[in-house]
């Protein structure tokens, strides 16, 4: 029934790659001051790799921006530096000074933590450097409201998203013209699924943070989920007590702030094993993150209208 794959039939990974590269080149050609939001996770890793492909032999002609919450895993900070060096790109880091001053943390402040460090932090950073287009690694398969977001997604001067007023995107034509004060979030890997991301990392040897692989790590339980104790003294200070630490073989399906990112018990030490486990798993990807559940079924949609990536 199926035809053998001939030279003219590109694989789905090849088509997705070509599409992402095309999008990045359009942005560079039409935006005044683009930037790539780099969260150090696996989606960011793939997006960065695609950018290096898009502009080779030039380095990608825009900086990397990390909106830091100060609560990321240590291994993520190490990877961040390594990738900036390898890609030859400028690395910009922004930490919301207001959140730092108020000592905002994921334990005491719940949703406010994400709001202050990430949502507000991102707006501040974009305003500070005057970026008019920011690449993000969001995918449409992640969450229901993402499934309807355009590849070029416009934000008002106050960084809000209006899902009812999106520009139509036909063929591969993107209208990058902005009104005064507007900025664009661009999602070049919109059409990738989690499996595609893993497959691409596998095929291209894209470097990723070791936390994605299982290893014996210090863990503690908090509100029924398993977390990694990445910085025990800081954890103790914020919690007011020393949580019970158990060594367990765990890994992470997504990476964010260590107190917000649930670990899963696992023995998958190689990439194929990780992919295998991912495919056989029965809970969806964002389950490990606390953020989506905040506002009931429409959590992410509400967050995005407020300016969250």
């Amino acid at each position: 029934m199926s035809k053998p794959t001939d030279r003219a039939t590109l694989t789905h990974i090849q088509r997705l790659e070509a599409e992402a590269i095309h999008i990045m080149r359009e942005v560079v050609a039409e935006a005044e001051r683009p930037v790539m939001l780099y969260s150090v996770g696996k989606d960011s890793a793939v997006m960065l790799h695609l950018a290096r492909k898009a502009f080779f032999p030039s380095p990608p002609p825009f900086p990397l921006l990390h909106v830091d919450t100060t609560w990321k895993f240590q291994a993520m900070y190490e990877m961040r530096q390594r990738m900036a060096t390898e890609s030859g790109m400028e690395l910009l880091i922004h930490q919301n000074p207001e959140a730092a001053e108020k000592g905002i943390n994921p334990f005491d402040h719940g949703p406010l933590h994400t709001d202050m460090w990430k949502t507000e932090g991102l707006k501040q950073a974009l305003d500070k450097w005057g970026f008019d287009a920011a690449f993000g690694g969001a995918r449409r398969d992640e969450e229901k409201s993402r499934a309807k977001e355009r590849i070029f997604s416009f934000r008002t001067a106050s960084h809000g998203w209006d899902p009812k007023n999106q520009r139509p995107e036909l063929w591969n034509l993107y209208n990058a013209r902005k009104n005064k004060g507007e900025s664009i979030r661009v999602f070049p890997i919109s059409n990738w699924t989690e499996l595609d991301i893993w497959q691409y990392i596998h095929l291209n040897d894209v470097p990723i943070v070791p936390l994605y692989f299982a290893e014996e790590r210090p863990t503690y339980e908090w509100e029924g989920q398993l977390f990694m104790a990445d910085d025990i003294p800081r954890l103790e200070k914020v919690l007011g007590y020393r949580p019970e630490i158990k060594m367990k073989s765990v890994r992470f399906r997504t990476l964010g702030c260590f107190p917000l990112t649930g670990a899963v018990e696992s023995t998958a030490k190689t990439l194929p094993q990780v992919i295998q486990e991912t495919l056989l798993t029965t809970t969806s990807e964002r389950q490990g993150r606390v953020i989506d559940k905040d506002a009931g079924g429409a959590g992410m949609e509400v967050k995005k209208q407020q300016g969250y990536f």
Partner: protein
Amino acid sequence: MTDVTTTTTDPVYVTEALIAEDIEAYLEQHQHKTMLRFITCGSVDDGKSTLIGRLLYDSKMIFEDQLAALETDSKKVGTQGQEIDFALLVDGLAAEREQGITIDVAYRFFNTEKRKFIVADCPGHEQYTRNMVTGASTADLAVILIDARKGVLVQTRRHSYLCHLIGIRNIVLAVNKMDLVGYDQATFDAIVKDYAAFARSIGIESFTAMPISGFKGDNITTRSAQTPWYQGPTLIEHLESVEVITSRDADKPFRLPVQWVNRPNLDFRGFSGLIASGTVKPGEAVRVLPSGKTSTVTRVVTLDGDLDEGVAGQSVTLCFADEIDCSRGDVIAIADQPPQSADQFETTLVWLNDEPLHVGRAYWLKLGAQTVSATVQQPKYAVNVNTMEHVAVKTLELNAIGVAQIIADKAIVFEPYADNRTLGGFVLIDKITNATVAAGMIQFALRRAQNVHWQPTDVTRADHARLKNQSPKVLWFTGLSGAGKSTIANEVEKRLNVMNRHTFLLDGDNVRHGLNKDLGFTEADRIENIRRVGEVAKLMADAGLIVLTAFISPFRAEREMVRAMLPEGEFVEVFVDTPLEVAEARDVKGLYKKARSGDLKNFTGIDSPYEPPLNPEIRVNTAEMTAEQAAEHIIRQLMPWK
């Protein structure tokens, strides 16, 4: 698990065993999958969302936590009683879930052993035609759903027409809800016969019909025992085997629209873009359009190493043997079969914006990496999407589809849409709001432009100007009614006349008594008014005159259009910047009073907008200076005269 009939024994989906036993083999298989993008058309009532939910469910794209949420939601807001409402998986935005309708395009993903699928789930109602066209523009195939109880409806015809219009060649007629008609073959056959007659009438050459039930899972992944009379493929079997666009494109002549010039250092100069059609190899002769310069490809560069061959659908960077000019917007093509260039086209337009088409207004036209200024002529006709009848129209409103001629301000490299989606499909962008207002498809270039040549005249515009011992100019006065445009322009002309300058004053009211007596004050007429005045001013400037024009000319777009007609520096925008309160207080002609009382419609500043210039060459404020002072100021600004 649940009480829904699952199809876990289906051989198509027994991939879990392979994942568990030999992940490397599974990844190898997944790596070589091709991709099919398709669109589903139909209304909520046709079971479209249910069908997509079913595809996701059957292909294991729904995780346990999602399933748990789905079960809860189904009981709370579902429409299927105690059973799972698959539609809830698909209807994304909160507002949509509350209203129970799909209002935007949502993209869904699933895999089988052979392919990855991207489904564009589009709303079915007529007011969402634009969303459907958007979803269809990237699709290889369309699944048109019909409710077996209802047969071919108006919306079936509309969806089929739109899919055909956008160039989808693979059409699946999915006769859904067969369970509700007792899987009756006669019902199915009657619907297919009915549809075939319609399809032929609009030019659809072939389609694949199948009896299904999204709700029960019949003929989706497994052949249904309920339809022994049906011998064709299941929906999934069909989706897995149809040809995708990129394989067809690879057999066409080579074209690559240049997106970006890659110049990291003096030793490397590459041209980056996505190959729109054909293939390219080092050593091949290519031509750069529109310049027509030729060279030879030396390298097809990627980060993973140079390619022996680049094919349609790949993003690459090309290097040439010669240093020829090539930049963003140019098209690299195989040397002996280049595409054409033209500046006038017959096009099919789909209007996407709440603001209707303004005939004659200049919009940005983006095609591939080319962006030019273009105006749309009055449509020849619009198509009634329900009956396919041609209707005479003056403009195109939201969701309208029409045929109209487009005139660009310079030639663009193109191919008819039927031959090449990338070089034939375009969008129109409003120059002021930046909204994407229309999608268009080039049918053909107009011969008119090719056959009407410029007749060279021996006495040139430079000769005209030299004899008058002056450089031609167009002093374009713009401002609100009652701002003082005519008065000041008159003062300026008097002074120029004294200075032995050859001038002519075109006044708004006067022109409307003659040349433009057929025009009213609607937006379309205002645009045409300015276009004609612009053309006349240009002819007069060609004759060597200094032209003064006094028109409200409320829209930036039209003033910029006139500026673009003239050589650089000849258009001088004079903004008579009088605040509305001051102009209204003067009310020399009593027009503001009429407008305020509602006796006069479309009056600028009252119920019709005025868009002030952003960077006028000269600005005069009549609240602070007299007409004489303003005229002096303008003359001084224009000095020294040559």
